[in-house]
């Protein structure tokens, strides 16, 4: 057996797998840079996955079918924005503890997606989804071509979000505001930055990206919807933000590492290794725990005010 070909096949699956993690983690990065720890990411992704899928399912065979994925993507992003707003209402306006509120949002999003899908879809059905779009020329490069340049447009968009996020976060006034309200909200407030408004904006952006991440799962990756399609990727994305030290580039590295760990189970099947399937599925989750355990020793810290609500009326 040609090992290189096997490796190529695994990476050609693993690299596109990383897009959902990447989009969600970049969104979560904006939330956390603004000081909000959004564990509801998982729930937003579930809603995004369902709404991304629904138009393709309902419009199957109609004249609008070619537009269905685009409509789905728009719906997913919109739902993400709305859920981000809801989370902002609870954690920014009402200053509720973010960890537990995030679990609430996760249940709400997951439950709603499940309820709606049982009503409108029923069982698990496939959809055409989004086709791959090999880049002419580049996709012919041996080894790298099939891995990096034979993805769906949605996949390219995901990777494009890395430099865009970097630019927005570090080179625009808005990005500076985001980092300021996450690091020292009182100073930002004193300088005239609206802390709550900036946090809300970051949550809307993060929510939209989590929604897109979900839509990627159902439209480009699995091409179907099931209740448990997200399977903890939202939580992994949150962990990836820690792992990636709140920086888009490291987050990209982390996403690739985890998605390749996830495609490891495919490698086992392809190579015919006698290894329990369940332990292969476990691998990424074990990896998250290990990474979190070792990330603690790093000297780089996260946003100083991460997870702390800001109350401008409170005396210091």
């Amino acid at each position: 057996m040609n090992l290189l070909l096997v490796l190529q096949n695994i990476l050609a699956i693993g690299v596109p797998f990383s897009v959902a993690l990447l989009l969600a983690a970049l969104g979560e990065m904006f939330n956390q840079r603004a000081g909000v720890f959004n564990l509801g990411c998982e729930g937003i992704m579930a809603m995004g996955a369902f709404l991304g899928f629904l138009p393709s399912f309902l419009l199957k065979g109609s004249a609008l079918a070619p537009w269905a994925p685009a409509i789905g993507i728009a719906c997913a992003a919109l739902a993400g924005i709305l859920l981000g707003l809801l989370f902002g209402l609870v954690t920014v306006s009402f200053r509720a503890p973010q960890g537990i509120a995030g679990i609430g949002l996760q249940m709400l999003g997951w439950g709603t997606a499940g309820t709606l899908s049982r009503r409108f879809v029923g069982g698990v059905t496939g959809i055409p989804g989004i086709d791959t779009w090999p880049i002419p020329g580049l996709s012919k490069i041996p080894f790298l071509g099939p891995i990096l340049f034979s993805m769906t447009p949605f996949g390219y968009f995901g990777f494009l979000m890395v430099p865009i996020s970097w630019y927005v976060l570090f080179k625009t006034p808005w990005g500076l505001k985001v980092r300021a309200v996450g690091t020292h909200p009182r100073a930002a407030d004193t300088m005239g930055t609206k802390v709550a408004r900036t946090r809300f904006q970051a949550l809307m952006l993060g929510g939209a990206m989590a929604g897109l991440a979900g839509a990627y799962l159902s439209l480009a990756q699995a091409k179907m919807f099931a209740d448990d399609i997200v399977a903890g990727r939202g939580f992994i994305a949150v962990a990836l933000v820690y792992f990636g030290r709140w920086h888009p580039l490291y987050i990209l590295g982390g996403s690739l590492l985890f998605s390749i760990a996830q495609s490891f189970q495919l490698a086992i099947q392809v190579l015919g290794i006698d290894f329990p399937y369940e332990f292969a599925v476990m691998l990424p989750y074990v990896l998250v725990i290990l990474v979190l355990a070792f990330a603690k020793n790093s000297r780089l810290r996260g946003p100083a005010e991460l997870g702390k609500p800001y109350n401008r009326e409170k005396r210091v």
Partner: protein
Amino acid sequence: MNRTYRTLYSAAIIIAAAAAAVGIGALVLMAIGVSVPETYRVILTEPFKDMYGITEILVRTVPLILVGLGIAISFRSGILNIGAEGQMQIGILAATAVALALPDLPKWLLLPLVLIAGALGGALWGSIAGLLKARLGVNEILSTVMLNYIAAQLHGFLLRGPMIDPAELQVGSGTPQSMRLPKAAWLDRILTGYRLHWGLAIALGLAVIVYFLMWRTTWGFRMRAAGAEAKAARYAGIRVESCLAAAMILAGAFAGLAGAIEVTGVHRRAIEGISAGYGFSGIVVALFGGLHPAGIVPSAFFFGLLLIGADMTQRALSVPANMVLVLQGAVILSIVSAKTWLNDPYARDKAVRKMAALFGGGRK
């Protein structure tokens, strides 16, 4: 006068929070095109129609009380345990393994052993997250969530492989389930013909014990102090890290015991889906019960009602049972929001002043 206004303020917030939770549920119900009042009516009243419904509520109340108690201990001590689902599954596996390994022991010995094994299994699983938090500062929410996924895979692996009922392999249906437990490991049922079992008494007894442990002992005071204000607790000489680890281990033990009781009392073998989301519902139960045993018991009953009610609406009105998750999520968001309003003296005084200006009375 101000006192009345303060009560009014609290009441208004609680009502608003309840309305928000019910309203979010209503939005989803409207989206799937079913009658909102009818659904709520079926969920809240249908289970009370006969003995079966009432006993089934109580069957669900038992694990909810136990998981809720454990989660309350952890939350009170300043560590958030989202891992009850996984801890419960490990408890189920440990209890089943012990029961199947020692089938010849007499009941008075085997049953307690099995329940203790379940609790130890859960405690072991909880200790991973607890120690990671205490030693390395690993975010316990993320680690417990990950441990849930790992436990689910472990559970599946053992039930499909080493622990599968040999009979399943012979007849070839291959259902992932263990052998039936020996009768000596069965928790007796309270009424013949219904699944309600004596685990209810265990759960209620433990609720009392948890109250005394957390509110009437120095140890409990230390735990709560560590959770209420870690800095002050540390200054007072309390070893906060040990408290966090202990809380997580204890929470795991409660979840594991809940699993063991489900196996010995209800299913009598390990099968997939015993934990059935109790680990997550327990979070809502604990929060809704004010993180206090006296609140958790009625709260567990209420969510037991919601769970069985949702099953009934699925059959009667074809509302998917996932609806329970929606309600639980909405309840969590409402509770945490309401709590900050209730505990914010500035907001309260502002509201009281406004009411005083509107209706008379005034500041003293």
